Structure formats: C-alpha cells, structure tokens
C-alpha cells in the first residue's frame, strides 16, 4: 500500500533550484533510503515533507490526503515524525522530558486542564511518562533519564532524538543521517534498531551517507543530484548504476 506520494516537488532558494520536480513513492512497511552528494537537496526534501519549509510547486499525498500545504504540526498529528541532521534536541529539558513530549499528539489536555490540575491532565502525564520510560529502557537510555539532554555526548543525543520521534508512535519516520558522527559499533546497533522498527510496522525513510548502512537495510534507494532524482531502484541496482557512481565520484570514478 502506498503510504506517501510526493509529486513534482520543486523548491528554489533565491535563483538556485534546490529541488526540481522530484517524485517519490513510499510503500507502507518498507525502509527507503534517500542518497545523493552534499547539497543535492535531501534535507530540503525532508523539510518539505514534514512542513518545515513550504514548497514552490508539487503535491504531497499522505494516505490519500493532499497535505502539501498543511503546517508542520498538523502533519505530525497524522503520524509523520522525524529527526534532524543537526540535532534539534530540547537541550535544557531532561532526557525523560524530551521523550515524553514526543508523545504530544496522543494527549489532549490544554492550558485549563493543566493549570487546574484536572484528572485527565494528570492521567495523560502518567501515560506519557510510562510510555517514555518504556522506550528509554528499550533503547538503553534509562540510566540517563534525569540528565539534561544537552549535557549528553553526541551519540546519545541522536538516540534521544530517535526516541522522541518514536514516542509519537509514528506511521512514517524520517531519519536525517541517523549514523552521522557515530562509531562503527554504534552504527551497527542503529542498523539493527531500524530493522526492528520495520518489523513493528513503521515505515522508515532515511537520508544517510554511510553506504554500508544504506545498502544493508533499505529495500529501495532513491538518488538525488542537484535537486533532481537521477535514479531509483534496489540497493543492488543502485550500486551498479553508472549515473549514480558518476554523481558521487565524477567522470573518472565511473570509468575506473
């Protein structure tokens, strides 16, 4: 089943076309990777899918609804979650709080309920806490739950961000370079973890530079270069495709 379909997505910054008519289809329950050289428009594409940036033209259809003009928070409410390449963690909140707030879309009490301490607001906080503790336990973050997120080492902050996104129980999870800055061992464990998500039925779309990770876990790979989709296919096909090798290594790499 098609979960998300992006059609003809176009975005310019000043005179530069960051994205030029990009089409992407994500099948539910799969792991898809988006690769391409630096500056090819990968993060811009993520920003457009999640509503962080408006697009100039094109459509984004999620579960049959055209969400292309929706603000970010409404898209999140449908079950689209993401992480950020340059970590957007809530630094002066604890790890537990970071993950708790991830579950925001499943709770409903507002200023009134919160301020007057109504039972529903309290119950929701308990639910958020339970869910967050469970996730922290699963991701090996439990020992750090009381620490300020900004004080953690980089690798752990990445994990906290993933936990925060998962805490929203998303249908679609966008991971922007989940392995950047991680050690080989950490990368391996992330790879296993992402495969585990697929088994839970979460659709994963990731941007990644680590080719071993990309080829190891994804079923479908989309290649961007200068804001255009130049190829898509299975990891094996992408590895053999000359135009992809050329985009990455230049003309000589393709010949050699």
């Amino acid at each position, binding site marked *: 089943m098609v979960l998300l379909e992006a059609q003809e997505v176009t975005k310019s910054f000043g005179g530069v076309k960051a994205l030029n008519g990009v089409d992407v289809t994500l099948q539910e329950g799969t792991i898809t990777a988006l690769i391409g050289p630096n500056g090819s428009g990968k993060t811009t594409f993520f920003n457009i899918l*999640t509503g962080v940036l408006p697009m100039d033209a094109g459509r984004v259809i999620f579960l049959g609804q055209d969400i292309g003009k929706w603000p970010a928070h409404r898209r999140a409410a449908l079950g689209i979650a993401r992480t950020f390449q340059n970590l957007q963690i*809530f630094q002066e909140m604890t790890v537990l709080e970071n993950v708790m707030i991830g579950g925001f879309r499943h709770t409903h009490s507002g200023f009134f309920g919160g*301020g007057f301490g109504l039972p529903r607001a309290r119950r929701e906080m308990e639910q958020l806490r339970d869910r967050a503790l469970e996730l922290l336990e699963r991701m090996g973050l439990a020992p750090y739950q009381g620490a300020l997120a900004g004080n953690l080492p980089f690798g752990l902050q990445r994990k906290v961000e993933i936990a925060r996104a998962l805490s929203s129980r998303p249908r679609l999870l966008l991971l922007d370079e989940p392995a950047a800055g991680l050690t080989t061992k950490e990368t391996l464990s992330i790879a296993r973890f992402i495969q585990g998500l697929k088994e839970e039925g979460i659709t994963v779309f990731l941007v990644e530079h680590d080719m071993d990770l990309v080829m190891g876990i994804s079923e479908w790979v989309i290649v961007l270069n200068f804001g255009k989709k130049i190829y898509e296919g299975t990891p094996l096909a992408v590895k053999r495709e000359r135009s992809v090798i050329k985009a990455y290594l230049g003309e000589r790499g393709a010949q050699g």
Partner: protein
Amino acid sequence: MKRDYLLLLTLTVTILLLPPLLPGDYYVEVLLFAGINVLVALGLSLLTGYAGQISLGHAGFYGMGAYISGALTAHLGWPVPLAAITALLATAFVAALVGWPTLRLKGHYLAMATLGLGIILYILFVQLRGITGGASGLSGIRPVHLGDLYFDTPRRYCYLVWSIVVLAFLFSINLVHSRTGMALRALHYSEVAASTLGIDVAMYKLKVFVLSAVFAALGGILYAHYITFISPETFGFMYSVDLVVMIVLGGMHSIWGALLGGTFLSLLPEALHRLEDLEVMVHGLILLLVLIFLPKGFVGLIEKVGEKIHGAP
C-alpha cells in the same frame, strides 16, 4: 515538582504569619502592593521564561483591568465580581487581537507591537475622559466585599491579594509541569522540532500571551479596587519596563523569579527612601548589570549556592 509545591506551602505560611508581625499598616500596604507586582510579573515570566517572548505592553493590560473594572463599578454600579470578569475577558480579547498577527511570525515582533499597544492604551486612558476621568483620574471605584465581609483594611486586603497570588502560583506550577508546560518549554528551545511533534507553535504562544495578559489585568483589578482612585501615570511605559526588570532580576527561567524579583523591586524604593528621579536610571542599570553578570537572576544564584552546599551535582 514536589519542590515547587513545598515552596508554595512555605510561601503560604510566610504570608499568613507576616502581616501581624509588621510594625504598621504602612508596611502591610507595601506587602500588598508587592503582591500585586508579583502577580503581574508571574504572568510575564510565563510568557518570557516559557515561550521566549517579550511584552512591553503589560502596563496597558494592567491598566485595562483597573480601568474597565473600576469604571463599571464607579459609573454603572456593577458588582465587583461581574465588573472584574468583564475586565478580564476584554483584556484577553485585546491581547489575542494583538498577539495573533505578531506571534505567527518568526522573530520578536511581539515586543514592538506590545510597546505600541501600551502607548495606545495609555493615550486612551488619558483621552476617553467620559469613562476614565482623563488625566485627573477615575474616582469612586467600589471596594471589594464578600457578603458582609469588607476588605477595607490594609491587612484584610493584603490577605486577599496574596491568596490570589498563591492561587496563581498553584495554577502556574500545575501548568509548567503539565503537558502544556512541557510543550511551551520545548518550543522555546526549538520551534521547528516542537512543530514536528504536533505542537501548534503559534497557537501555544498566543495562548500563553493571553494568559499572561489576564494575570496583568487581574493585578490591575486588585489595585483599582483597593486604592479606589486611579490615574493614567500608574499604567505608563515605565511600569512595563519595571515588570521586565522584575523577572530578569528574579530569574526568567523559573516562575519563582517573579516572586523574588517582584518583591525586591517593590521594596527597593522603600529601602532607598524613594529614589525619586534616579529611579528610572537605577532600574535600567539593574536590568543591564543583572543580564551581564547574573543572567539567571536571584533564582540562579540560589541554585548555585545550593549546588555548592550539596556538593557538585
């Protein structure tokens, strides 16, 4: 969280015991006005400390509370509670009207828009002579009573004011520890990340702004019905600045900053035997020096001392 409720209990007990111990009505009155300042500053600290926005128009909201509630009782003879609720609703409406266009934007437009609003409201307080009494002021505002219990002595009114302050703190503590409070803190650190978690950033900022305006109006209502005579200069630009000084001095990152900063700034003129003309500059200097040398204010200082005593965390 437990700590906050304990602190609130301490505050409640202190306030219960304090008025009889003070040497005279004059000091009870100082305490009473300090309570009003703390209430208004608490609202501003929710806005600044939790949503990262600045308002320079809170004196205007304070004035709206005072003038609307005061005029409805003085001219039309409305009962105080009804007049007060009307004033709160009207203030909330005006705040929403100004907040809506400005808080949708990235950046700090709210500060300038509220500066303008404060100026406009001040002009209205002076110009609408038929309602506000103009520059010579509005008199005949009704005092507050509950059945036969009249809050007509400084001590009684002081208890009334501080009961409301305590309730406002209770509300604020509940709020900041709720899902809503977490969402506000989250958007303070990263609006983008908050929005991708489903938080409607603009709406949350708008709501907390309206809430903080309502706190200010409540302070104005309490002021008007105690003093029973109000005139525009109380609600000028400098009071808005003083409120900012209070929360910065106390510590913007904590709601307790409003209590410490608000009380301190209310007592300062008493301690220095009325600064008169120096006051404006002294307040500006306090603001600058605290920002530079004590960026987390009194609360930050206390936290640091606490860490020293309990050893490094």
